[in-house]
């Protein structure tokens, strides 16, 4: 069975500090991977997607970047956090158009 793991579970960071969020998927080779962002009580905004190692496409940048260093790993990062980066970050994978599977998310609070 496929499992998706996100780290950390939660972060409190200062404005201007760097950030790195990670996501690993096990049990699925060459998955399509996604980063979503959700403001509190808000909708899910797709940020990035990747269909293969080393290749990442941006949907909405929000002064963030993403990388896929390994087939099963997807990283979201920034060198300088803004207050507007606060929210819930979700990593997800999919098989075509059937269903999107979400990780448990990272709650980020920028202070």
């Amino acid at each position, binding site marked *: 069975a496929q499992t998706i793991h996100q780290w950390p579970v939660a972060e409190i960071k200062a404005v201007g500090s760097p950030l790195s969020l990670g996501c690993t998927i096990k049990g699925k080779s060459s998955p*399509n991977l996604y980063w979503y962002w959700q403001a509190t009580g808000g*909708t*899910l905004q797709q940020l990035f997607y990747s*269909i293969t190692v080393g290749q990442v496409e941006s949907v909405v940048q929000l002064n963030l970047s993403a990388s896929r260093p390994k087939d099963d790993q997807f990283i979201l990062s920034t060198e300088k956090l803004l207050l507007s980066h606060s929210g819930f970050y979700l990593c997800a994978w999919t098989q075509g*158009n*059937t269903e*999107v599977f979400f990780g448990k998310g990272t709650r980020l609070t920028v202070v």
Partner: protein
Amino acid sequence: GDSVTQTEGLVTLTKGLPVMLNCTYQTTYSPFLFWYVQHLNEAPKLLLKSSTDNKRTEHQGFYATLHKSSSSFHLQKSSVQLSDSALYFCALSLDRGSALGRLHFGAGTQLIVIP
């Protein structure tokens, strides 16, 4: 462009009453529609999905029918429970022959069930 509209931001109901959450979509491609449910501080989980016109799909007491003629996929339940309180998202995926599976999410409907 492709989009999903959920007209209710907040629905408050008494336990035991029926509910319908509206979802309409816009696309020129062949659609896959989904309903996701998100409880507080949890990730969204798939509730229902469909790509078949006029066929009812059901899960955990919830049901929905994709109507391509009206571009709708409304979520219904005949008797809501306290545990149904959550944020519900309608989402659209498009069959473009692509492996991307990108989802367009609606704004979400917060359902609150009171005793």
